[in-house]
């Protein structure tokens, strides 16, 4: 039947007469009728035609670790929704999380191992035996091996560690472009705590966000949105939200007050507010005098002058933050991607500390240890460790590189020399699922399953204030000839004769073994029943909280000598600060090959498919450019072109570009579309955290004389008196439920 549909059949009947047509049909259908009609002669147990089966798992689209429930029909994944029992997502999910299905069913997924054919310079399909043999051979003769991956959490990290341990000299390195390195270092320096705290947005009454776009991609957007909604209309006083940033983000649009501040001075403003609060008598700790003198340099006049924020506004925020309790200050995004990123993080911690928001509900709560033995954050490296890798590769001291699901060739600036360094490494193998820019430079590709086909487990980061772990399971059978990344590492180790180095036969065994230990520590009943209920629930929690009292020593702040941001490029030649920003839909660029994300209008500009550069209306007029004019944005390290979007809420000396487009690889949807602002940023780092200061590059903007069709989905951008979005005064609020954090039902041991 396969070659003849109904229309074709009718044509045959009409053209050649009934006899010929029907005879042909009969001959076709007599061949292998059963093969076509019943795809599953013996269907799997959970397979029931016409009935949907739901599986709980963990989202793999960004590092937030939302719990998901996936609807499958006839063995195919149909819809991803949030897992209602999971405390991070609570049944909700963002657009990128929904689009996970287009990762699984992406037409450009790698479907089998590939070997680089030296003569032609292109890849040819290979078998797993060939591929593993090639990698194992190269690794056995290598002196120095680097295993570079995205951040790996949960027990899968153990396989990576043991694999690296089995090689004579191997370095594990985990790199994510969007990882908030400066926040981690800032927290360690302020409070001596390694994990990120829980930001209790749901219960806060006054939130000041210094650059963190917490509703659109910053560390845990779904959970923050839940908190935002609860704080807005949740049965208690409506929370007041302030957003400080040079360019209005999605969170800025939802804030009650948007405050533009000079790029990189967010920390200064936080200290200025803290200084005001101390001066107004809002801090009553024993070390009040020490704080008064420490914060003395951040008096309102100097802070106002350096940040460009009117002193009345600083005073109003200080008063609001002091009197409206509980309050919460957060920072992240571009604000912590300056050369003073860690200082900004410490400054915001200071503000929270001075206002008494540390360790209270509605402020910052610390996260207790996870129920899992490992969280895998130990091997995390900032940008600087990749820069070191570049140096070593150029010296010829790295013999082999194994890369998995991270794309530094795309996310590292061209100035870093990463691409050139990769070419110098004699052997590169990629375990990624897509032909991204880094994978394209590999000698061997052993493609991994997507997260919807693999076993894994996770500790959400940031946590939710109590001890939580989650487990992810395959929701569909593997589509292609791919393999779970853990299984690939096990196979390579076994091929090299190190089968005793990794004690598990498969990733699933490793995960299950890890949870056996969790069960031994506090689970009741037998393990199999626990495991079954765990997979059904998808999440496991213990009501353990971290209520330690912390103090912040004024000397930490006093030691921040150089709080002033510095920029690459002189102001005369490069008059604008480039403000790259990440969004939920593109994340670090991985959304660019998903059609749903390309067709999803940008939240603020409604542009689809391509990239653009946002310019203040006054600046645009001075430059003589209109919306859609293509301009060249040049830094000391290169230039990109993009059409202008005249953006009403950006500082006049700042131009902003979204991160995520400008791929040269990554499949048909992403390839050769838009431009990548990260390629022109200077390779300068924040000295304290070693992270890339990607928001600290100055650029010039020059019209090219060309125009581009900037496809936007918005019609008229003003209401023109139609009163479509109606507003009401500040007193209005409506009854609703209270914050949900404490009442989350987490299935634990009961079957």
């Amino acid at each position, binding site marked *: 039947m396969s070659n003849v549909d109904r229309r074709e059949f009718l044509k045959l009947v009409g053209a050649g007469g009934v006899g010929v047509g029907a005879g042909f049909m009969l001959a076709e259908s007599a061949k292998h009728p059963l093969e076509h009609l019943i795809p599953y002669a013996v269907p799997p147990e959970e397979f029931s035609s016409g009935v949907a089966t739901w599986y709980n798992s963990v989202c793999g689209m960004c590092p937030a670790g939302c719990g998901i429930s996936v609807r499958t029909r006839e063995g195919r994944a*149909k819809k991803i929704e949030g897992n209602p029992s999971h405390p991070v997502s609570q049944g909700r999910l963002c657009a990128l999380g929904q689009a996970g299905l287009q990762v699984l069913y992406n037409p450009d997924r790698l479907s089998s191992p590939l070997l680089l054919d030296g003569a032609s310079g292109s890849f040819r399909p290979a078998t797993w035996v060939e591929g593993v043999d090639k990698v194992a051979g190269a690794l056995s003769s290598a002196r120095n091996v680097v295993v570079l991956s995205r951040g790996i959490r949960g027990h899968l990290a153990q396989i990576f560690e043991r694999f690296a341990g089995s090689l004579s000299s191997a370095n594990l390195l985990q790199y994510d472009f969007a990882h908030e390195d400066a926040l981690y270092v800032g927290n360690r320096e302020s409070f001596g705590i390694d994990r990120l705290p829980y930001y209790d947005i749901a219960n806060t009454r006054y939130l000041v966000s210094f650059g963190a776009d917490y509703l659109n991609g910053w560390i845990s957007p779904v959970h923050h949105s839940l908190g935002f909604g609860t704080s807005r209309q949740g049965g208690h006083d409506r929370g007041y939200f302030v957003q400080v940033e040079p360019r209005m983000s999605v969170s800025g649009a939802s804030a009650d007050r948007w405050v533009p501040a000079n790029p990189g001075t967010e920390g200064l403003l936080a200290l200025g507010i803290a200084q005001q609060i101390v001066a107004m008598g809002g801090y009553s700790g024993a070390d009040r005098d020490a704080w008064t003198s420490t914060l003395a340099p951040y008096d309102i006049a100097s802070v106002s002058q350096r940040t460009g924020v009117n002193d009345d506004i600083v005073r109003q925020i200080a008063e609001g933050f002091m009197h409206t309790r509980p309050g919460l200050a957060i920072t992240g995004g571009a604000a912590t991607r300056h050369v003073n990123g860690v200082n900004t993080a410490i400054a915001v911690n200071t503000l929270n500390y001075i206002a008494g928001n540390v360790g209270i509900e509605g402020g910052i709560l610390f996260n207790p240890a996870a129920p899992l033995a490992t969280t895998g954050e130990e091997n995390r490296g900032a940008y600087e460790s990749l820069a070191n890798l570049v140096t070593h590769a150029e010296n010829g001291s790295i013999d082999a590189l194994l890369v998995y699901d991270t794309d530094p060739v795309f996310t590292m600036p061209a100035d870093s020399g990463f691409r050139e360094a990769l070419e110098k490494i004699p052997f590169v193998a990629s375990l990624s699922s897509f032909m991204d820019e880094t994978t394209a430079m590999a000698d061997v590709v052993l493609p991994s399953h997507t997260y919807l086909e693999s076993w894994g487990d996770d500790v959400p980061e940031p946590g939710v204030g109590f001890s939580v772990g989650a487990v992810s399971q395959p929701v569909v059978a593997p589509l292609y000839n791919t393999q779970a990344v853990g299984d690939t590492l096990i196979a390579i180790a076994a091929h090299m004769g190190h089968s005793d180095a990794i004690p598990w036969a498969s990733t699933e065994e490793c995960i299950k073994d890890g949870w056996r230990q969790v069960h031994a520590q506090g689970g009741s009943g037998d393990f199999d029943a626990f495991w079954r209920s765990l997979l059904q629930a998808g999440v496991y929690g213990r009501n353990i909280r971290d209520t330690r009292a912390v103090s912040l020593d004024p000397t930490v702040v006093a030691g921040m000598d150089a709080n002033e941001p510095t920029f690459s490029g002189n102001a005369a030649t490069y008059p604008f600060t480039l403000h790259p920003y990440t969004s939920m839909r593109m994340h670090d660029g991985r959304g660019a090959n998903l059609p749903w994300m390309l067709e999803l209008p940008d939240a603020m500009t409604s542009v689809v498919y391509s990239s653009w550069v946002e310019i203040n209306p006054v600046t645009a007029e001075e430059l003589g450019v209109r919306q859609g004019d293509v301009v060249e944005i040049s830094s000391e390290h290169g230039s990109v072109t993009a059409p202008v979007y005249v953006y009403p809420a*950006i500082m006049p000396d700042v131009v902003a570009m979204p991160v995520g487009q400008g791929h040269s690889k990554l499949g048909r949807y992403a390839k050769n579309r838009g431009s990548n602002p990260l390629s022109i940023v200077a390779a300068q780092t924040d000295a304290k955290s070693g992270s890339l200061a990607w928001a600290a590059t100055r650029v010039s903007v020059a019209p090219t004389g060309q125009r581009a069709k900037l496809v936007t989905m918005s019609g008229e951008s003003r209401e023109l008196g139609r009163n479509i979005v*109606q507003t009401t005064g500040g007193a209005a609020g409506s009854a609703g439920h209270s914050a949900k954090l404490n009442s989350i039902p987490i299935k634990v041991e009961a079957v």
Partner: protein
Amino acid sequence: MSFLDRFIDGWRRYRRPGYYEKFDYAWTMSIDLDRCTGCQACVTACQAENNTPIVGEKELAKGREMQWIRIERYWEGEYPNAKLKFIPMLCQQCDAAPCETVCPVSATYHNQDGLNAQVYNRCIGTRSCAVYCPYEVRYFNYNNHHWDSPLEQQLNPDVTVREKGVMEKCTFCVQRIRQAKDHAKDDGRRRVKDGEVQPACVQTCPSEALAFGDRNDPGSKVSQKLSDPRAYHVLDELNTLPSVVYLKKVDADAG
């Protein structure tokens, strides 16, 4: 009574606002603009649930988008006091729907639950309904769309894939409503319980701005939202009697 008289009489009764009091359900959505963050999770959730096609950049440039729910953005003021307000816009399932009266073949009609339904295989593509819709939420298939293999494996088997020449729009996820009704019947209940059925957009909304339910049930979540002092209808002056209720955004500094 002749057939024509009966038809006209029936049509009049059927068109009379308040018809829903006679029936079991009056499905209603409430959208709290103070909670909405413009994140658009609803847009992608709708695309996944309802098999709306990927139309491509060229078609989008012609304004031929197919997303049944969208976020509209309205700027206010100038820098540094510029503000951006978001509003999700979808078929308002009007009780007095302008689109229904103009369809020459009755492809769009009002069903018992107060839904403005679209019969795809009755639609002949005059696009009159889209012209009459003041909310601009009807989408026309200018092409036969295709999904690059194997993306089609994701398609929801509970929802049809529409063809060229057919108008389509938000259905309040009627397939989910039907399923919930079937479940209620299987359980021997007459009515669907509040919260038992949620369209894909409501289900996914990360800030819980959207709520869905039956306004015939005074205890339902949406019935409570209807009595909120912030409740209003978009373009209320047109008297379309929408089933989507918006709750006003709060301007905290307006006092």
